[in-house]
């Protein structure tokens, strides 16, 4: 079991969360060329090692989170709200 320390709810079993996917992806503008959209929707680096990914605390606060996790050892390196405004507030930057 992976324990994810939700910034809103505290440490919880991963089974309370839904896995989103690669969190490093930024979506292009609506009028961007089709290749950019193709890359954002379909192509993945599929890293073996530490990657940034999204999880949603579906059975808890329902917030989307950005998690740095090792895809081989499953060790969690960091976890913060995906919404930059929430992250800034929680991390005392506002």
């Amino acid at each position, binding site marked *: 079991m992976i324990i994810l320390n939700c910034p809103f709810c505290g440490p919880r079993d991963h089974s309370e969360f839904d896995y989103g996917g690669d969190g490093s992806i930024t979506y292009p503008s609506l009028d961007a060329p089709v290749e950019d959209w193709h890359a954002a929707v379909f192509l993945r680096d599929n890293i073996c090692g530490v990657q940034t990914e999204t999880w949603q605390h579906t059975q808890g606060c329902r917030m989307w989170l950005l998690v740095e996790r090792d*895809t081989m*050892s499953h060790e969690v390196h960091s976890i913060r709200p995906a919404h930059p405004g929430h992250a800034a507030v929680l991390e005392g930057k506002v």
Partner: protein
Amino acid sequence: MTKFSAWNVFWNGLTGQKGWGRQWRDPAPKSHYDVVIIGGGIHGLATAYYLAKNHGITNVAVLEKGWIGGGNAGRNTTIVRSNYARPGNREFYEHSLKLWENLSHELNYNVMFSQRSHISLLHSPGAIDAAARNYNTLRRTGTPDAEIWSLERLKQVVPHLNYAADARFPIMGAAVQKRAGTARHDAVVWGYARAADQFGVDIIQNCEVIGLTRDNGRVTRIETSRGPITAGKVALSVAGSTSRLWSMAGLGGLPIETHKLQAFVSEPIKPLLDQVVVFGIGGAHFYISQSDKGGMVFGGDLDWYKSYAQQGNLPIVQDVSEAAMSVLPCLGRVKLLRHWAGVVDMSMDGSHFLCKTPLDNLYLNAGWNYGGFKASPAAGWYLADLVANDRPHETIACFDLKRFERGLQIDERGAGPDPKLHG
């Protein structure tokens, strides 16, 4: 090499079993091959066999980082079927099933292919309609053995299922493919290895590819843990490790994510289940058959997050056990013997890639999701054809990496571009 026959078994029985030698050589890698296949799973070994047999290309090596069949080839639940309904998949999997039907004879190796029927349980009128649509399509497009069964028929043939009227999801019927079944996975690995070796293919174990050098749009050198190798053509057949090899070649992203899938086997029990039974509704997903040794072999969903660890998590053990109890409550006291996991190459539409790549002499076989065991003979057959002729056969033309750019998704589930949903 000894040809296996009833006479040989009989004679060796009388002479102390001394007539059996090793089944394939253990050669040191040469510095150059016409074709190097990376990955010694069933797909890689089958590719080597069909390259030699169908195309006369025998200066071939299969490089395997561990032992052959140590990956998903030796970890799967061995279900073989061809009840895929989308164009492209239909023709491909039906070709594969036809190759399975003659495989033991062709390889002179008993792969224990048992066409015991694949029975998908249906729990609502809507599910029956959807299955009827797919199975009618199958019957009209070359798969004659796709049937829809009534509840009465199902009860006669598979009496031990949970038919209780107060079950959470009462069974209403079933979609059945009768030529589907199971095979002994290790035997398929060994059978292809032995047959390829007989043609002169070098099967090189404990040989990990650690780098791919490219120059001028070609792979020019393969760095391995046993020294550098050069090759005219290179084929990737590494299942869950595809992205790692892809990035060694500096090729960027792929429409693939690596996830892990678990499987389970119980202690051996007396004959209970003669078919493969599949249960899938409302978030549950479960498939079960009984091995020749008597163990109940079963599995369910992925672990739900990306992972390269060949080790499963406990919530899925609970999930799968609950599904087992709801379909076959008589298993309640049976002990679990072992469970394990393999890393699978989940693709963006749930279908595979058998295609050329941006590098001229590099060919790709990947994206097998849950289902590449059944595909093994055809994957090897078509990959060999692709490597030998340097153009895709028309049957695999749609399984290229560019299909998403063209707006094509071969998505049996209709789940969209989220790899974990294509289980």
